[in-house]
């Protein structure tokens, strides 16, 4: 398991990293290295140059910024899982991070790396979608902010602009009294989600659902929001019957993925069952 030879640049700042990317069309960004390096060792990915952004301090950390929470792209899964602010305000993000890989992976892997890599079965994209996150990208032309929805296009395909560097992920504060959960069926070999469900619900004073974000990962060609499920929940009182009815709409306009372990029809089944159970858990 030896990667092809490559050049290595350590970037001291975002500007340096962007310049290095621009200089070398065959360059790739290296953060935690837990997705890219295995692919390079298998020679399924190559890079003429790796631009290591791992020591850019600005990209690290979790902070409150007015009515948003900003998470630096280099923040590790372990921090996401443990950070008190995130655990209090965005527990679905912490829960999804806790489901990633093993301890070593969580200590190295980063939120920015996971999202930019765009694995269709990664855990964080589901949480990011369910939390209406904004992705902050630096390019040589300036800064861009992209909504999480629409970012994940397909297996290893995202809307990240060419030569762009994901610097942070920011989250609006969820509504008062929000209930959040992440539920995952892990592939027994890879640990990636066969189906992962992130849910954020808020109830009005009358007990009806006033806010619903349901996102899935692993189920399709890219992580997605289940709008049909959300629509079925709104303005209604959550019950076992409603959970079942809403979960039944998880397949609306979705093409489910299939592999040796789980066919598309079985993934659909899993998605429905686990959306329902996730909702029941929030009852």
């Amino acid at each position: 398991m030896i990667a092809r030879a490559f050049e290595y640049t350590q970037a001291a700042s975002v500007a340096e990293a962007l310049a290095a990317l621009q200089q070398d069309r065959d360059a790739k960004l290296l953060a935690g290295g837990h997705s890219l390096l295995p692919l390079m060792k298998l020679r399924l990915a190559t890079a003429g140059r790796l631009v290591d952004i791992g020591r850019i301090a600005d990209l690290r950390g979790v902070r409150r910024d007015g009515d948003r929470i900003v998470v630096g792209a280099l923040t590790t899964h372990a921090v996401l899982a443990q950070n008190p602010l995130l655990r209090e305000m965005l527990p679905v993000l912490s829960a999804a991070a806790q489901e990633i890989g093993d301890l070593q992976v969580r200590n190295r892997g980063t939120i920015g790396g996971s999202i930019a890599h765009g694995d269709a079965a990664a855990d964080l994209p589901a949480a990011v979608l369910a939390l209406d996150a904004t992705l902050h990208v630096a390019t040589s032309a300036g800064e861009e902010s992209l909504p999480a929805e629409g970012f994940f296009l397909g297996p290893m395909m995202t809307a990240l602009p060419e030569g762009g560097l994901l610097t942070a992920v920011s989250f609006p504060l969820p509504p008062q009294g929000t209930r959040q959960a992440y539920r995952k069926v892990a592939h027994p070999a890879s640990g990636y989600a066969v189906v992962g469900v992130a849910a954020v619900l808020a109830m009005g004073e009358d007990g009806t659902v006033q806010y619903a974000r349901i996102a899935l990962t692993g189920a399709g060609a890219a992580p997605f929001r289940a709008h049909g499920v959300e629509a079925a929940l709104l303005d209604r009182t959550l019950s076992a019957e409603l959970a079942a009815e809403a979960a039944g709409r998880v397949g609306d306009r979705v093409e489910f993925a299939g592999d040796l372990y789980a066919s598309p029809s079985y993934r659909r089944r899993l998605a429905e069952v686990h959306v329902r159970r996730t909702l029941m858990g929030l009852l």
Partner: protein
Amino acid sequence: MQLIGVPQKRVEDPRLITGRGRYTEDVRLPGMLHAAILRSPRAHARIQEIDVAAAQAADGVVAVYTGRDLAGKLGPIPTAWLPPDSDIKATAHPALAVDTVRYVGDGVAMVVAESAAAARDAIDRIKVRYEPMAAVVDQAQAMAEGAPLVHEDAPGNVAFHWKAGTVPEEAFTGAEVVVRRTFRQQRLIPNPMEPRAAVAQYDPSTGDLTLWATSQNPHIHRVLLSSVLGIPEHRLRVVSVDVGGGFGSKIACYPDEALTAYAAMALGRPVKWAETRVEHFQATTHGRDMVIDVELAGRRDGTMTAIRVKNLANMGAYLSTAAPGVPTILFGLIVTGAYTFQHAAVDVYGVFTHTTPTDAYRGAGRPEATYLVERMVDLFAGEIGMDPIEVRRRNLVRPEAFPYQSALGLTYDSGNYQRALDQALETVGYEEIRREQAALRQKGRYIGIGCTSYVEISGLGPSEVAGAVGFQGGLWESANIRVHPSGKVTVFTGGSPHGQGEETTFAQIVADRFGVPLADVEVVHGDTARIAMGWGTYGSRTTAVGGSAIAVAADRVIDKARKIAAHMLEAAEEDIEFRAGRFAVRGAPERAQTFQAVTLQAYLAWNLPEGVEPALEAAAYYNPSNFTFPFGTHIAVVEVDAETGDVQLLRYVAVDDCGKVINPLIAEGQVHGGIVQGIGQALWEGAVYSADGQLLTGSLLDYAMPKARFFPAFETAFTETPAPHNPIGAKGIGETGTIAATPTIVNAVVDALQPFGVQDLAMPLWPERVHQAIQAGRNGR
């Protein structure tokens, strides 16, 4: 101090778990080169041309070899188990393919370079033009008319045909009940923590070749490689001290270590080769892969009378070193399990396919046999409407029947199968769980209870039997015990433990006998230069056979020391008692000499009794008179999620009897590891080939190895029924868990799904399959 039967932490562990082990890959020698092997991406193709020019010209490349370059210089790899009367087509595996590649992973060329990176880069620069040919990966399809042939001289792709036992036709025609079923033992990929590796160093001035290799049996490697390489055996040293697991996959002699040795000789520099994990998936032997038809005859009173088995065993593209023995001897002779069948017959075809060769994998034949008989017991019980536990109870060999001659001619040495069954039932609380099961079903929850009462052939074995069944070696074991002048002890064993903990177990046997501290005993293994001869570690033989050799040698040391002690104490030899490290005169305990004092006198030799030579050392070559037959009962409780087919393990109870337990801590660890591997086959593991021979489960991303978090705490216990025919009473515990756990789990899941009319499920029990069976059951009603 008594050490036998007392838990001791493993003395090898501090070294191994703090990164100070010395595995083959850790060997670094001055001037060492690195090898990489180009492997076939096609399952079956004619090699039209290999262009190595670009690779040869690459930076750091020292040599490139193809199959043609090696013709006449490096012999093919032989098969070393040739079951008699089986018309076996023993293939010789060329070290590198010459004209034809026969599986994905078959070696095509080797690059030797100044660095591992340069070697790896250079294999990408070799251009091979293949003429693709039709491939076949399934054994039944391979036997069909018109199937592509793997070897021209094996029509129908039949590698061998072996039979044992007979069943009179009326045993079935006149039977009250006949149950028939086909089971598929899916292919497994061993995946020890340490992949295979080899380092070779040649000294042209003496002609000595040292080969560090990941082997379970370095002396067997030496015998085989000396003929493959054309090196006299006394010039070849094979070293396999720290080996990170094998599970059977490191028994075989592979082309790769032969190539590494050849390159070291040809180039006059040390060469290292180490496989990657992905390479391991393709190039290291696989396990299982059998399609087994079973017919069982019985009576409505629960008696099982006859069993007939036909096994189509997928051997892959070549017959690996021990492979033909697995589906024949190790499988065929134990299909009656722990039960008193009157008649049994086995019919086995070994079949070539365009897949990675199969060979022994933890349990090797015995898990497959146990699976079929234990599944059939449950199916038979369902057929006659009897509790499967009751069927087991009625058919288990009775304690008073030992030594018991099985229908297939084995002599089960000792046992109390009922006691293990009763203890397991009591531990799990069988009746209560049955009541709970009924209550939960009312609520739409489905728990199941599965049981296996197994018996295993282990402690391989009597050398005469080895010969009779075509194993091209002996199965005795050697021991040499050298007591140093200070009374410290070095034990040399021909066993080659690679994770089983015998550096501790064997030290316990010796320290216990000599009455010296455990720390005073060192166990040396895995080096043909330090150990005269040995047959290695597999088939749960090392403690039973190698440990017995050590016990015999230790007693020889004591016999000699007793003579010296008697002389020192001016007493008659027969009046000397040896206990707890002291030789004392009977009736006068104050007249005594310590083991260490006697040892010193043995070496000083100032005043030895007449006829006694100096020094204190003894050897033993122990050839067992029988195999050993561990047994036990495992019970699992599972819950199946009827909405998704997901299987959850709730309880796992294992009551094993491996005879006398030397170190309960190690024995329990072996049981844990075995159970995990057995459940791995039941629930997660399975190699899948596409129809054209691509391995679809080619890495740990797709092939699910069990992980610790998948399991509940195991409830383990031992009963002790000593092996009557060896001096330590030990039987073997390395494979029992793997043998018992697989059918236990499948029985439990099928039991859970009784309300849906499910009778059988194909392994691995991936949730989708289970869910499909539930849906089929729901729709069928």
